[in-house]
């Protein structure tokens, strides 16, 4: 059997982490190809429902990343997001979802190397955890919605 390749969806902000991930590439830093990046205007725009939908669509883990505190392009989007993540993370834990599958990070536009490290370490951690079968079974159960 081929080695399990985790599918990781990264929700990143346009101003810091997306630019940081760009820098990883232009710096020719090699990192795990398991991540699919989705660009958002701001971490403040990343609704928790999107994270749930990523899991429902087959993600084994999620990375949510944006500007460091005080660096937000919109002044406070990341501060608001931080509270939402803290609340959401605790709820996921209470529901029995492994919070190691949701990695939050601050990656600035200058931190290309940090982005590679975040992706690599998350990929390694999820490789250990295995596929998110619990959630996938849930998604497959019940009425077939088609499409």
């Amino acid at each position: 059997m081929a080695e399990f390749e985790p599918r990781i969806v990264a929700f990143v902000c346009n101003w810091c982490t997306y630019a940081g991930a760009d820098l990883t590439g232009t710096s020719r830093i090699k990192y795990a190809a398991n991540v699919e990046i989705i660009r958002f205007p701001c971490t403040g725009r990343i609704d928790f429902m999107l994270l749930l939908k990523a899991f429902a669509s087959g993600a084994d883990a999620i990375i949510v990343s944006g500007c460091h505190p005080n660096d937000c392009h919109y002044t406070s989007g990341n501060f608001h997001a931080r509270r939402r993540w803290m609340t959401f993370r605790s709820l996921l834990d209470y529901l029995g979802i492994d919070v190691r599958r949701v990695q939050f990070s601050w990656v600035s536009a200058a931190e290309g190397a940090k982005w590679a490290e975040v992706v690599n370490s998350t990929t390694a951690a999820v490789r250990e955890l295995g596929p998110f079968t619990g959630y996938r079974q849930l998604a497959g159960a019940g009425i077939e919605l088609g499409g």
Partner: protein
Amino acid sequence: MEELRKRARELLATGEVKVVIGYGEGSAGRIRPLFITDPAGAGVLMFDERCLANLAVYLLKAEVKQLGKAAGTAPIRNHSNGLQPAAESQVSDETVRLIGVADGKAVDLPTLASAEEYVASVSLEPAAEEKEALARIERMTMEERWAYWNEQLSRCLKCYACRAACPMCYCTQCTVECNQPQWIPVPATPLGNLEWHVMRAMHLAGRCVGCGECRRACPIDLPIDLLTKKIGEDVAAGFGLRAGSSRKLEYALSTYRPDDREDFIR
């Protein structure tokens, strides 16, 4: 009880309020909500240990609001349910007045400020048995929690009685009715049920006063109140904001402190 009726009669007769929302005897020994607009009708108001339903939900209904200023009768603990909507600019002293009931006696609370004073004198923390119910799940392993919630939530009928009964679920357009995109599937499926209950809990984060009406309304008694109460405790512990404690409470998720906890962020 007579005192409560007298108070309601006075409020209606003087025109201070246009409608008194209270409890009345229903059929088959059940309690039903009453909307008294005529002072002569106040005689059927009642209050006993069966009057658990949180009537605050009606204070925010358009049909009730158009009647004019409303007086809501409430067990004293539910006064948070007058204060939280006030914090969200949904009610004010111009639109509501609360009549408290404690130990069978009417407690006069002419303004939201006086209700707030009263609330300050009681503990808004979950009762001991509620805390134990929350802790019981926290003590489980992650796998046990997942199995427990799957078993519970997969039974959900998606009747949305929890939403209808919740005084804080007053949006006129709810995400569950949104179909472009369809955030929550219409039929009851295990995944959609989980998504609905996560969404409900998250949208009530820092707003749920823990009255437990969602669970009382649930036809199959799902312990969904634990989800909102759990977040309520997190928000109180993490941000120092207890829903229902003040008519000027800031919304936990639309405010921040630069030094909010971030030990979970890399």
